[in-house]
């Protein structure tokens, strides 16, 4: 029987880890993800789970040891945030290219500098091209549900790729909300036992992992990895269907909220989608036809699906919670605009930057953006692209 409870996002993910009870978890503390290894260690200390925990000396080592354990044939994971993810960047690439189906519980936090502990997506967006599947949560329930779906996606024979489960630092990780938890047996059955095909500790069949590869072979390895990423889209949807059968909660590549007849859509990821939905309801009450497209799966990027979902509206606000310093908008905006163009969906697409380093994002901000889109469509004007929302001042105060 599902159980109703109240939990923070970190507690929810730690609880999911307890239920999955993986074989090995190396981890290193970093705010705001620290509670996850803390809570797991406490579960282990009290005999509530028996995962082997490795208190490594850095995040580079946590991902290195995760790869070692996974290669050895053990279901493995780690957790981190921000600079921790940046430090393990090299190893993220190796986890994916060595086709390790491990999992990383990421609690999104901005990257230094200035050093700041609050949420934005610069850590996971910085790792967007490392070959990991990336799934984002709006709230604690989704963080929990996404984690439970992670191993069945990663370990699928047509995927064999690592999965990053992302939730927003503090906003989701520390805020306590109601949650519905599956019972342990349901989770165990859903996740199943790990049966690796090739692994170091296979007594009958030694294997070498991590070769030097000359140019005659390396390009094929990269193409195979790309095919696996493409394959994962269908697997993510299949696992979501199976999850709906056990939980009653439905997931896709993205969620469309009141978009059927919408003139204007806000495309957004993570916890701010909740704010956007509230503002959307408010504006709908006033007769404005607006909707929200909440992207759940950023890797693989569902380009054609997004373009199709936006094909009926007049304008879209693409909300980036990550500055990538290319002088032309955030990473989400780049990829969505490319998707729209390639699929010949030539609507008004406006890039916005919001919520960097924990800056509040409010319903008023959403009203303002929708009003701006509406006016630009009605008056046939071009809104300012790549505008920072909620910025106090620009440049150095004089």
């Amino acid at each position, binding site marked *: 029987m599902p159980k109703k409870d109240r939990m923070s996002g970190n507690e929810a993910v730690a609880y999911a880890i307890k239920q999955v009870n993986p*074989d*090995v978890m*190396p981890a290193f503390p970093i705010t705001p993800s620290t509670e996850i290894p803390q809570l797991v260690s406490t579960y282990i200390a009290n005999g509530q789970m*028996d*995962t*082997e925990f*490795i*208190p*490594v*000396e*850095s995040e*580079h*080592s*946590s991902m*290195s*040891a*995760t*790869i*070692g*354990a*996974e*290669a*050895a*044939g*053990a279901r*493995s994971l780690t957790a981190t945030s921000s600079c921790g993810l940046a430090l393990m960047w*090299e*190893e993220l690439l*190796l986890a994916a290219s060595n086709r390790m189906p491990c999992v990383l519980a990421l609690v999104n936090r901005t990257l230094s500098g200035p050093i700041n502990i609050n949420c934005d997506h610069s850590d996971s967006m910085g790792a967007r091209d490392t070959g990991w599947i990336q799934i984002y949560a709006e709230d604690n329930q989704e963080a929990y549900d996404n984690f439970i779906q992670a191993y069945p996606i990663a370990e699928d024979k047509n995927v064999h790729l690592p999965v990053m489960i992302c939730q927003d630092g503090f906003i989701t990780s520390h805020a306590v909300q109601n949650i519905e938890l599956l019972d342990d047996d349901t989770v165990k059955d859903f996740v199943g036992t790990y049966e690796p095909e090739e692994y*170091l*500790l*296979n*007594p009958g069949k*030694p*294997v*070498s*992992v*991590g*070769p*030097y*590869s*000359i140019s005659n*072979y390396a390009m094929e390895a990269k193409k195979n990895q790309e095919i696996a990423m493409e394959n994962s889209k269908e697997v993510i949807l299949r696992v979501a269907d199976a999850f709906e059968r056990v939980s009653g909660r439905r997931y896709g590549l993205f969620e469309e909220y009141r978009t059927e007849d919408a003139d204007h859509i806000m495309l957004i990821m993570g916890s701010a989608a909740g704010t956007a939905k509230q503002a959307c309801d408010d504006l709908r009450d006033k007769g404005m036809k607006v909707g929200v497209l909440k992207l759940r799966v950023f890797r693989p990027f569902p380009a054609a699906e997004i373009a199709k979902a936006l094909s009926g509206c007049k304008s879209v606000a693409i909300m980036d919670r990550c500055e990538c310093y290319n002088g032309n908008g955030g990473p989400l905006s780049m990829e969505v605009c490319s998707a729209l163009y390639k699929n010949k969906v030539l609507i008004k697409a406006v890039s916005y930057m919001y919520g960097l380093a924990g800056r509040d994002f409010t319903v008023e901000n959403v009203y303002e953006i929708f009003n701006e889109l509406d006016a630009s469509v009605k008056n046939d004007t071009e809104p300012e692209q790549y505008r920072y929302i909620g910025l106090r001042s620009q440049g150095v105060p004089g």
Partner: protein
Amino acid sequence: MSYDLKQVMNKPERLAVGHRMCAGCGATIAVRGVLRALHEGDRAVIGNATGCLEVSTFMYPYTAWEDSYIHNAFENAGATLSGVETAYRALKKRGRLPADVNYKFITFGGDGGTYDIGFQSLSGAMERGHDMVYVCYDNGAYMNTGIQRSSATPMFADTTTTPVGTQSNGKMQNRKDLAAIIAEHDVPYVAQTTLTQNFKDLYVKSEKAIYTEGAAFLNVMAPCPRGWRYDTAEVMKICRLGIETCYWPLFEVDHGKWILNYEPKKKLPIEDFLKEQGRFKHLFKKGNEDLLVQFQAEVDRRWEDLKYRCER
């Protein structure tokens, strides 16, 4: 049991022929020697930091390793094998490996991957006490990238980042004493050895390292013909001179007890070791006599310090 060279050499090779390491390379001799100490029937997972050994023994689609083998990156052989060893304990505990199957965990790294970039990862693995052996094949420079200095490079060595020139006599610093540093981690077994005396010292220490429960560290001086510039046939002679001059003393630290394994009857002057190697050629030029005196003084200081630790 007494050491029987013939019997030990007749054990099946666990690093197969056909790899692409240089003739006269100390690293492969060291690796084969270490792996001979595995008992018959015991399996191993071999780890490897990026370096000559890795790129020359596992070039897709060929592997020279008879045992399971993992290369991850340059700076994380310690952490990677930590994960493998922990996975072994997890799978054993959960009954997912047959009870009679035994694995040992041995990782190899050059001095660049061990003394320098992999130092933190090694230190972490040793402190946590994983049941593994980290073997450094110390050839005293980044040989794979073309002979750049490392913190294991001896003073005055000519390397491509400490080149000898009109204003330079090679590397200006002494080498880091890594075996002592790892011993200070309070691990059960640390030893320093090289390729000498019918490989008995290497064999005995490898066996102890592999079969002592907990973390162990072996520092093996493994000459490199490209970087040291010697005739490839002379590798064993150079190793012998390393110990006879007390440049590379044979010692072990067994559960905290420092033990000197070999004391030459007559300590040879350091020149005997240096003159065999092109990287020290400049030390024998007229006017550089004081550099040899400095080198000898440093060897003597370290030797006396080691003897003091062993006599305590």
